[in-house]
């Protein structure tokens, strides 16, 4: 049983004398076998936090300004690049939204999957080829042996996403970070990929961090959900609790604004305004200009993420009132 702990991770971008804090004291923990969903809109910092965990941020302009990324107690940020690399890729791997740009267009997909095993495990060419074909079969690519030598552009979007998943699984990681893995796909293909990820997690007891903006997808796969807004987690809870009784006005607003069968014929209940630019995050609680419950205190005092009586966490001064009002 492995454990991934992100502890007060902060990431800043320094561009032309301007400092943009993209991730602000982000913390979460995950054991293998669990699925955590990071839910947020564009610019909420969810993808940047994942890239930081994977060591894929470009420095400069991005700088990790604080926090720890602990894998079974070892802080990856305290290790040398080379030492950290043996955790990343091997123990934690990642899949991306756009498989076409994440795969190398001039190498065959089979070569790219086999390369993982040759570099990290020192397998021979013949052995790595065999393993790659097995992995392609495992992610249900039809006629895997025949398609080993095909190039990324010869596959459909759904099949390319399967290739990415096969690459991510090549070294049997303990954790998989999936950044919007189905956003570019059609709904019937999304259902295939979600089903595949579900089966793989059952077989391997791999832990998964799924990043999405889709409240439907989050409801379908998450054990726990952490909601992000302007670089911070504003609420975290088991999935069912979060949807039943949100403890942050932003979560409540998101849930109220999506169209459902029961709201047909009525106006939707949107959140006013739009998500803030990270270059100009509002004072106090970043959500206060859009919040229906905000008071003067909210514009001055930043609410810290705190644990409520039922074990959930919320970064709202009035978290108790929010859940009571909706219960």
């Amino acid at each position, binding site marked *: 049983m492995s454990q991934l702990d992100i502890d007060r991770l902060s990431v800043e971008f320094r561009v032309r004398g301007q400092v943009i804090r993209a991730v602000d004291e982000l913390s979460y923990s995950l054991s293998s076998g669990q699925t955590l969903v990071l839910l947020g*809109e564009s610019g909420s910092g969810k993808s940047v936090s994942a890239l930081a965990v994977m060591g894929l941020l470009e420095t400069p302009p991005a700088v990790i300004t604080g926090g720890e990324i602990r894998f079974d107690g070892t802080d990856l940020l305290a290790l040398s690049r080379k030492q950290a690399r043996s955790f990343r890729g091997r123990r934690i791997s990642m899949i991306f939204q756009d498989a076409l740009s994440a795969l190398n267009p001039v190498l065959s997909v089979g070569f790219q999957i086999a390369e993982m095993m040759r570099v990290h495990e020192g397998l021979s060419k013949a052995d790595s080829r065999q393993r790659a074909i097995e992995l392609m079969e495992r992610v249900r690519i039809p006629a895997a042996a025949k398609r080993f030598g095909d190039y990324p552009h010869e596959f459909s979007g759904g099949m390319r996403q399967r290739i990415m998943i096969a690459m991510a699984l090549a070294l049997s990681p303990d954790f998989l970070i999936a950044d919007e893995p189905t956003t570019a796909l059609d709904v019937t293909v999304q*259902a295939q990929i979600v089903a595949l990820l579900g089966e793989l997690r059952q077989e391997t007891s791999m832990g998964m961090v799924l990043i999405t*903006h889709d409240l439907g997808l989050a409801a379908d796969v998450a054990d726990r959900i952490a909601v992000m807004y302007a670089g911070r987690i504003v609420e975290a809870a088991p999935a069912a609790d979060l949807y039943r009784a949100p403890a942050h006005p932003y979560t409540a607003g998101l849930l109220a604004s*999506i*169209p459902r069968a029961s709201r*047909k014929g009525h106006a939707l209940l949107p959140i006013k305004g*739009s*998500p803030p630019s990270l270059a100009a995050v509002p004072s106090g609680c970043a959500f206060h200009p859009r919040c229906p419950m905000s008071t003067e205190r909210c514009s001055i005092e930043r609410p810290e993420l705190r644990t409520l009586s039922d074990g959930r966490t919320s970064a709202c001064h009035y978290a108790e009132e929010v859940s009571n009002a909706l219960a």
Partner: protein
Amino acid sequence: MPSPENVLDVQQLVKHFPVRRSLLRRQTGAIKAVDGVDLQLRQGETLGLVGESGCGKSTLARLLMALERPTSGQVLFHGEDIHALSGSRLRALRRRIQIILQDPYTSLNPRMTVGDIVGEPFEIHRDAAPRGSKRTRVGELLEVVGLDPDHVNRYPHQFSGGQRQRIGIARALALRPEVVICDEPVSALDVSVQAQVINLLVSLQSEFSLSYVFIAHDLSVVRHVSDRVAVMYLGKIVETGSHAEIYDHAAHPYTQALLSAAPEPDPELRGQRSTIVLEGDVPSPADPPSGCHFRTRCWLAEPRCADEEPELTVRPGSEHPTACHFAAESPKVDH
């Protein structure tokens, strides 16, 4: 059949894009983007058009706007074939059918101010606004879509995604159209902003008695706004009916699969809903399967489906038109 309450009447519409190879540019095949579509848009209603990427929804939108000439078939606007018009009569028609595009970032010219963007339709159609009234009209339009008329001299990059989509809506409304084609109008927007734009579109519809063709891949958005829904697969309408007929009594296997694949925002339904996971991908429109286009992914397919193309018509298994030999409401799909 032209009927007075139909604003748009689409009859057997076909659009094939030729595929040419070699030096001689001989036609070697065709992309069958729209392959025999019949549709009616009634006065004041919203017709939802759903389907996956590549099914031909956007080509259909361009045909309805007379931006693309059909290979065969007709689009009748109040009984008049829009593709037979030219010159001043075509220009007059364009005022009455407008479009809202998906991407508010690329559909607005970054070098034009908001006032110029929303006022441009009046430059093209000089008689639409009396001399000297353009500024006032632009201000009114910005107010109607919930933007500050004082921001008329700002540029698109100074607005958020949701505000930019409002600019696109103001531009579409400038000439007081009767029909607005909404091509994925909210899919590029953040979740918290989508609802604002949906509410705006709904309230503008009654204020200006607009008829909408609402194209989207998000089934819950389409259910919310539509009076009637048409489901498209590989260039053809496979099922059409009222929103309740489609969402609660779907009879075509593709519609059933599509509805069951869309995740519901409720974790407590997990494991309780039956999900139909289709095999494979949508085939290429350059080489669609014979007979029923959906048969290669259909769990009900029989040899008959390969030989005989099912027509879109009312069948024993359901009260609304479907294009499936075996149309039936069961298996009941919970969604």
